[in-house]
Every structure is written in structure tokens, then in C-alpha cells.
């Protein structure tokens, strides 16, 4: 309610706000609303502009979406046998992400449980700072570490011919997605009401029994969301996998095989594809595919989290 229409005993001498102040306030509120809506506009614009560059090739008769998704033949610059099949790249993304998650999920959730249930407040604060710093390391630095330190280490320990491979990318991606899993996972455990813990302790349960009998089942949606966001981070990561996984467009035979992921493929080839060429448009189509994948993963994670809040 504004002061002007509030009932009061002194109707005459009430100071009025100047006209410009009222108009200025309206303008600022309009600006605030516009900024709020801008998030939707930006997401829509990203989808629109990426798809717009891809569209001419999608709606052409000789282009088959089935071949794009399910063929392993990726020969974008071949002279007489041009093929745009991304299956090998998709498998590359999946294999690196799967390995990263196999490492990051147990460690991330274990660390989240330690942070929220076992450790002293002072240790917790320190560890949270470390996690924050870990998540701040730029992906190009991670990629550089993979390319130099990690690849030498892998060659020495496993005897693989090249050190940039699925294992290398998986370890780097695991280190990159652990902070996401820990911080979201810890939030999920924190959200379990203390009365659950008190009830368990009153029955004589140890902390460990409490964790696996009460807390993990109660927080499972939040923990699942943490894992999903970690997956989203790993799938979308570009520079680190570009530098750490090698450049072989094929379906990997094992974890010591080099691969290329969807993201790394765009980064590696976009610079050489002439603007407007088929190759260039197919790379944008790959971008659309990536956008849709991460969109679906993030949306699912949000719905899963919303599920616990409703309860």
C-alpha cells in the first residue's frame, strides 16, 4: 500500500514524493522484471542461435538424422566420402563420463557423508574451502595437467603407448566433478531433519548405522541430484577432455584407448570448418544435441530435488 492512499487524519500537509521519483521507481522496477525474465530469454536465444546455424543442413534431403546419430563414420573433410556420424563421439563422451562417475560418485558421496556427519566443524570449514578452490580451477589448467603430468604418470604406470586416453580424461573429469557432488550431496544430507538423527541415536545406533539405515535413504533424492549434476558437468566439459583424451574418433576398446568426445570434437574442428559449410553446420548440430542432453540432465536433477522439498 502506498502512503498516498493510506487513511490518515492529516489530509492536507502530507509531503508528496516528486513525480520523477515515482516514475524513476517504475522504470527501475521494469528493469528488474526485465532482468529476471532475461534468464529465460538467454536460454531460448542460445537454443535458437545454435539451431539456426545448424538448420540448413538438417532440413536437406540428403541429410539423415539417423546416420548423424547412429553412424560411427566421421569423415568431415574427406574428398569423396564425406560422412557425419557422431556415434563414436557419443560413445567417447559416455565412456569418459562413465569412468569419471565410477571414480567421482563413491569419493564424492563419501566425502559428503564425512563432511556432514563425521568431522569436526573446524575441519569441515577447511575442507569446504578446499572444495571451493578445487572447483575454481579452470578447465584448461585441468587439461594441461592431464596432458603433461597425468599422461606421463599413466605411461609409466600402465605401459600404455600414449598417456592421453579414456583413463586420463576420466580421472581429470572425476576431479572436476567431485566438488559439485560433494557440495550438493552435503546440502542434501543437511536437509534431513535432526529429529531423524536423534531418533536413531536414541535407539542405540552408531553414526555409521545412522548413515546407511536412515540418512542415505532419507536423502536419496538429493544425493541422486548431486550425481546427476556431476554427470552434467562431465558431459559438458570441453577443454579438459580436449587436451587429456587424445584425438581418435573411434569406439574405444579399453580404458587405455584414445577417444574424442562430442564437446572436444566441436572445439577441435570449429576453427577449421569454413563458416556456412556443411561441416560447420553439423558441428552446430552437435552443439544442439549437447544442449538438449545437458538440458534434460539439469531438468531431471531439479525435479528430483523438488521431490524432496514437497515431502
Amino acid at each position, binding site marked *: 500500500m502506498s502512503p498516498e492512499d493510506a487513511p490518515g487524519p492529516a489530509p492536507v500537509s502530507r509531503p508528496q514524493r516528486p513525480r520523477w521519483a515515482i516514475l524513476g*521507481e517504475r522504470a527501475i*522496477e521494469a528493469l*528488474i522484471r526485465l532482468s529476471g525474465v532475461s534468464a529465460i530469454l538467454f536460454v531460448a536465444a542460445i537454443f535458437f542461435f545454435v539451431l539456426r546455424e545448424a538448420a540448413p543442413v538438417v532440413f536437406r534431403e540428403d541429410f539423415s538424422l539417423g546416420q548423424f546419430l547412429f553412424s560411427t563414420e566421421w569423415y568431415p573433410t574427406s574428398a569423396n566420402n564425406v560422412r557425419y556420424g557422431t556415434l563414436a563421439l557419443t560413445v567417447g563422451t559416455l565412456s569418459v563420463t562413465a569412468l569419471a562417475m565410477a571414480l567421482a560418485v563413491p569419493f564424492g558421496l563419501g566425502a559428503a557423508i564425512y563432511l556432514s556427519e563425521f568431522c569436526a566443524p573446524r575441519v569441515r570449514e577447511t575442507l569446504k574451502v578446499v572444495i*571451493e578452490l578445487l572447483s575454481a580451477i579452470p578447465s584448461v589448467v585441468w587439461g594441461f595437467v592431464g596432458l603433461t603430468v597425468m599422461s606421463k604418470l599413466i605411461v609409466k604406470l600402465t605401459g600404455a603407448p600414449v598417456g592421453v586416453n579414456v583413463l586420463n580424461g576420466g580421472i581429470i573429469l572425476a576431479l572436476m566433478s567431485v566438488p559439485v557432488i560433494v557440495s550438493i550431496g552435503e546440502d542434501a544430507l543437511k536437509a534431513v531433519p535432526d529429529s531423524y538423527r536423534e531418533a536413531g541415536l536414541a535407539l542405540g545406533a552408531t553414526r555409521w548405522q545412522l548413515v546407511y539405515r536412515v540418512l542415505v535413504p532419507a536423502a536419496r533424492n538429493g544425493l541422486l541430484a548431486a550425481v546427476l549434476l556431476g554427470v552434467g558437468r562431465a558431459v559438458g566439459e570441453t577443454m579438459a577432455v580436449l587436451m587429456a583424451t587424445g584425438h581418435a574418433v573411434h569406439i574405444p576398446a579399453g580404458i587405455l584407448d584414445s577417444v574424442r568426445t562430442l564437446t572436444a570434437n566441436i572445439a577441435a574442428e570449429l576453427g577449421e570448418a569454413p563458416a556456412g559449410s556443411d561441416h560447420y553446420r553439423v558441428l552446430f548440430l552437435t552443439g544442439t544435441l549437447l544442449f538438449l542432453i545437458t538440458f534434460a540432465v539439469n531438468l531431471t536433477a531439479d525435479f528430483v530435488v523438488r521431490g524432496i522439498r514437497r515431502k
Partner: protein
Amino acid sequence: MRFARTPHIARKERAEAAAKAVFALMAAAMVVPLVLIVGYLVYLAWPSLGWEFLVDVPRRGMTDGGIWPAFVGTLYLVGISLVVSAPIGVLAAVYLNEYAKDNWFNRMVHLAVINLAGVPSIVHALFGLGAFVYAAHLGYSILSAALTLAIMTLPVIIASTREALASVPMAFREACWNVGATRWQTIRAVVLPNSISGILTGVILQVSRAAGETAPVMFTGAVFFKSVERGELFPYGLHEQCMALSMHLYTLATQVPNVKESLPYATAVVLLGSVLLVNAAAIALRVWLRGRKKW
């Protein structure tokens, strides 16, 4: 007085100790790589590190010399992206926290912010290329790259500003409304002053995030090499291309043959050091703030 432990309880306690040790190890497994990586990079970078490395330009076909053009280029990109994304991000957070009612539309806004944070950086690069470089005719330029970075880092500012605004107690606003202030007057006089340090933290985090990004600037405005005077402060125009520290590291590590061995390591250390320093500043600000809060 203490009762003797039954075998059952002894087993329970052993399981407890084992579980605690395993979880502690898992947590420690995060600290070790951070320390090892930073330590090892600094060790290998040591021969090149120094003031001279920072202010000198790349020499002998980028195999020697310093990183000045890339360093200044990153400052340009980060500065411009900050000027664009800070006001939009803060206002968007004000909308979400102070104006938005809980209806389907605002849930969409919320989802959009989450998705904006989840879009892969290479897709942001494609967007910047399609939208700013071509559709808006900005060409490959600092402006295109900085705008791409600004949109990419928007969720960072929105998230921490929202948190800061939400931590201002509702009673503060109610008191202000009760003396007749409008919604905006309340925000300006009560909500923003009480959350300014939290907002500043978000802005600092945006800087660190923008400085480290590579893919989005690589295809929209950052170049391989640009000739710049040693120590020159304003070498770039807005419509020119520039070098960027993150891309420079990628170039040195993968594209340039026969680089002096410590050079890419030193570049990595400068990039990593700046980002971690900026982040540490944000953390310190937050800790200091928590100590000062009176509610």
C-alpha cells in the same frame, strides 16, 4: 561407572571406526590432488616465474619471453563481461528474491537460471559465434567474446546474490514497509546495503570464472598471437581481437613446437594463481562477513 562391552557393541564400534576412517580418506583424497597439482606446477614453472615473465611479450615465435598481451587481454575480457553481467545478474536476483511470486512463470525463470549454468561452455561458444560474431555483426572481437562470457557467468552472480538477499531477515523489510516505504525504497535502503558484501562475493566469483574460461573466447574473439608493446596498458580496441591467458596456455601446450620447457608451466601457474587468489579473496570476504553479522 562403565558397563563392559558386549561383543555386539564392540563389533558396532569397530564398524563405526572403520566407516569413519574410510570416509575421512575419501575426503582427504580431494585435498591431496589440489596440493600436489599446485606444488608440481609451481616447481616446474619456477625457472620462468617472475615480474619479467608477466610484463614481457612472447618472443622467438612464442617459444620464449612473457605473457603480457595475454594477461592484459584477459583483464579486458573479464572487465567488460563484468560490466555487462553484474547489473543484469544482481537485478535478476533481486527479481527472483524480492518480486517473484511462487507461480509457474517464476519457476520457469528459476529453471532457466539452472539450465544457463548447466549449458556446456562449448555450446556457449557456438552461441557467441552465431549470435554476436555473425548475427549481430560484431565480428571476431573483444566485444563478442566478453558478451559471450557475460552470459555464461550470469548464473554465478545470480546464485550468490540471491543467497545474500535471502539472508536478510524478513523483519527488516517489514519494519521498512511499516513506516511507509515502497518495495523499491525498501530494497535500496535496507535489503541491498545489508547484503552488499554477499553480492560482492558473487561478483568476485564471476571474475574468477570468466578469467579461466577458454572455449567461449577461443571462437569469438581471442587469437593465437597479437603484437603488443612490452608492458603497454591499453593495447586493444573493443572491436579488435585480443590474446587471452587461458587460450595462450592451450596454444603453448598443444600448438607451438619447441617451447622453452618451463614456459607453459609458468603460464598455467599465473592463470591458476590469479584464479585461486581471487577465489580466496571471495572466501575471506565471506568469513569476515559472517563474523560481523549481528543477526
